Structures are given as C-alpha cells and as structure tokens.
C-alpha cells in the first residue's frame, strides 16, 4: 500500500505555469508558443451562438471545490492539487454561507470536489447538513483516500448512511495506464477502495447507492465512445476484481495546469490543441456544464466551471462571491470563454457528467 507520487505541484516546483495569467498567455499564443488558434467565441458564433456568447440555462448544480489538499499528485491534475496544498481549503464560515445559499434556493444538486474533499476537516459535517436540506450530494472521491489512513476507512459506510453519490476517477482498468497518470500504487489502492464501496452496496444491481467512474485519456488523445468504454470497463473490472459500478463518464483532458505543463514539456501542446479544434462539435456546445452549474472556490469566489476556477476567471455578473450571491444575476450572465473551452466541445463533448452530445 502507499502511493509513489508522479510529480510535484506547479507551485512547489516554482513553475511559471503556477501563475494562471501565464497559462492564459500560453493558451492565446503569447508565451512559450506563438501558435494562435481561432478564438473559441468566434467558433461558437459560427456554430450559431449569437455574438459568440454563451448563456446559462438554469443553475441546477452547486459545485464546490472545498480545497486543493490531496493525497495524490496526478500528472494531469487541472487543480494543481497535492499534499503540499495546506492553505487553499474552504473554512467553516464559507461552508456555512454555502448552506445558507442552498437553503434559500432551489438548487437541488451539491457536487463536492477538491483535491481530496474528504481531507477537509469540515467535510462530513457539511455533507450531513446538505442532506438535511434534502439536497442530492455527489462527492468526487479519488478512491485511494479511503485506504490512505485508518480515519478514512469508514468513508464507504458514511457515504452509504447519507446516500451520497460517489464519482471516482479511474483512467484505466490496467494498472500500468492508471499508475502512469496518478502515481505508482494508485491502481491497487483504487481497487481495494472500490471493493470496500461494493461491500456496502455501492454500484450493485438493485441498490440506490451509485458508484460512477470517470475515465479520462492517459495522454494527449481524445476519449473514445463512452458507452463502449463503459462496457469494457465493466467487463474487465468484473472479470479481474469482481467489481461493479453504475456508469462511466468519459471526460476530455483540459489543456490547463499540470496537463498543459506535461504537454509543453513533451512538445505535444500544439498537436493536442489542433486535435481539440479539429474535433470541435457544434452540437456539444449546448450541453456544456457551465450552462447549468455554478462553481465555488475554496475562498468563496464564484466561477462558471471548475476549469475557469483554476484559471482564476471569475463570473462576470454582479455578485462574484458567495457573500453577494445573486441567483438571477448569475442566471443571466455571459459565461467567460477562453481557448481551453475547446476541451469541452471536442468529439462527443465533455463535462463533469461525461459526454454531452
């Protein structure tokens, strides 16, 4: 047991990319590369979105990134999370403010992510309070946290007691593919954790406890057909480890943060951006997650999605912080677009719930 980390955070490496403004300069061809790709807003204008503007449909998902602290340092992490991120984690006061907002509004789904959100000391209390409000709670659990320390061994029981939907990353049913992205030892620990989740009823037929897996490519290529990947993951995980799960969400790697760093290091950036651009699918635009989600950062600021959050692109409407939350202003805002958005519109499209087209 135990994980051998794949990399270090951009911050601890003092990488220029730890500065989000620098990442945006790269994406726009103004640093490290002079390659300019067509503006995403122009592309969606051609696809019929008037003036290249994207508007929300209705906010249905309240996604909180409650901290960047994580027991893993995955090579592609868009959050630049890791064990060294001890400061950027949401405090009790902000979580209480989020509960106030949830109590006052008809937003039915709370999607908790990180980092490893379970490492936030207020995590369990917050889940219980959300459930008391009758909200559906989803946790983006990296699986290995469950077996990382005795104090987390009972997480499957806790999740089950509170009917939490578990969404977990597993980039491949092969140990080699998974560990290459997430760290040596991650695959074995993930298998143990999934078996523990199965043991309390997660992912089982006729059970209400949902265990959904997230697939993302372990390199600079696009995800294949989601249904086909799901059936192969089900077959292989059942055959090799007697593991069951509900759905597989295929997610495209976004060209930001550590994945951007990996591509620049390996000379893959321009090819990958061109791949995203060539695969631009106009019919995926309408289903992107920023249209029905609001993303909350550890410090209470509001963003269109977790990726905009990691690029520090705050919402443009009145009330950019949970202390000034204004649902109607948010629902009429213009979504902030930039070149990384090509990641969500390539092929069958991509969102936190998998493909969209």
């Amino acid at each position, binding site marked *: 047991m135990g994980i051998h980390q794949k990399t270090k955070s951009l911050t601890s490496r003092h990488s220029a990319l730890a500065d989000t403004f620098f990442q945006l300069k790269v994406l726009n061809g103004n640093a490290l590369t002079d390659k300019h790709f067509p503006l995403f807003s122009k592309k969606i204008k051609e696809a019929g979105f008037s003036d290249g503007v994207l508007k929300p449909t209705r906010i249905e998902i309240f996604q909180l990134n409650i901290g960047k602290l994580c027991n893993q340092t995955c090579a592609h992490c868009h959050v630049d999370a890791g064990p060294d991120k001890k400061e950027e984690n949401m405090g009790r006061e902000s979580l209480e403010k989020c509960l106030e907002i949830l109590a006052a509004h008809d937003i039915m789904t709370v999607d908790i992510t990180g980092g490893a959100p379970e490492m936030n000391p207020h995590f369990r209390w917050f889940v219980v309070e959300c459930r008391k409000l009758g909200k559906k709670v989803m946790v983006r659990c990296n699986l290995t946290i469950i077996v990382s320390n005795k104090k987390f061994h009972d997480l499957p029981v806790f999740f089950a007691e509170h009917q939490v939907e578990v969404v977990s990353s597993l980039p491949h049913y092969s140990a*080699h593919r998974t560990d290459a992205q997430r760290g040596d030892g991650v695959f074995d620990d993930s298998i143990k954790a999934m078996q523990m989740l199965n043991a309390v009823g997660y992912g089982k037929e006729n059970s209400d406890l949902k265990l959904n897996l997230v*697939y993302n490519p372990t390199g600079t290529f696009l995800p294949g057909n989601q249904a*086909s990947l799901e059936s192969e993951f089900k077959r292989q995980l059942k055959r090799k480890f007697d593991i069951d799960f509900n759905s597989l969400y295929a997610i495209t790697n976004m060209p930001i943060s550590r994945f951007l760093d990996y591509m620049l290091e390996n000379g893959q950036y321009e090819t990958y951006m061109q791949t995203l651009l060539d695969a631009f699918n106009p019919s995926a635009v309408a289903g992107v997650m920023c249209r029905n989600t609001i993303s909350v950062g550890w410090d209470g600021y509001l963003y269109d999605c977790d990726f905009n959050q990691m690029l520090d692109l705050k919402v443009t409407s009145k009330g950019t912080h949970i202390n000034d939350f204004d649902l109607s202003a948010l629902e009429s805002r213009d979504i902030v677009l930039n070149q990384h958005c090509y990641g969500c519109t390539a092929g069958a499209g991509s969102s936190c719930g998998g493909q969209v087209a």
Partner: protein
Amino acid sequence: MDKKHYFEPEDLKKFGNIGEWQKPMADKFFDYYGEVFKEGALTEREKALIALAVAHTVQCPYCIDAYTSGCLEKGADEEQMMEAVHVAAAIRAGSSLVYSTQMMNHAKGIVM
C-alpha cells in the same frame, strides 16, 4: 514544395482530399470505411486492434499512427496493442515458415 521524405506525418490529414480528383469513388470509399469501423458484431476497440495489426503487416506509417491513437482512444492498453502486433508478426513468420514444407518436399525428391 519543400518535400524531404516520401512519408510526411502531415499528409495523413490530407487523406480526405483524394476526393478532389475523383469524388464519387472517394465518397464511396469513405462511406464504406466509416461503416466498417462502426461498432457491430465486433466492438470499435476490437476493430481498431485488428487495424493496428494489419497496419504493421502492410507497413503503413500513416495507419500505424492513426490506429495507435485509435486503440488508445477506444480504451486498449499497451499490452493489448503489442499482443495485436505479435499476432501480425506470428502470421508473417508462419506464412514464410509454412513454405518450408515445399522446400522439404522438393529436397526430399532430389536427395539420396
């Protein structure tokens, strides 16, 4: 035109342009190609692995690049891909070796 090699990776992207000089045939070919690689009795992943093996047999560098990416996209891993290439290699080796029966027949006819 600055062309240094017979095979240029960029040329793969121009494959679709073959229709510029003979459109009806190109259209028929690409329709057929698309139909062949759809999920059917075989999965898309199985078809991509077969294509990868055949690509090695016909030694097409474009096809090798395309189906290496294709296999990974469809969820295959390195072990499966290398096994597929070994299948191609084994058939190649076998198809040479099986002719040795002809050699043996002929030799047996002319030696004491």
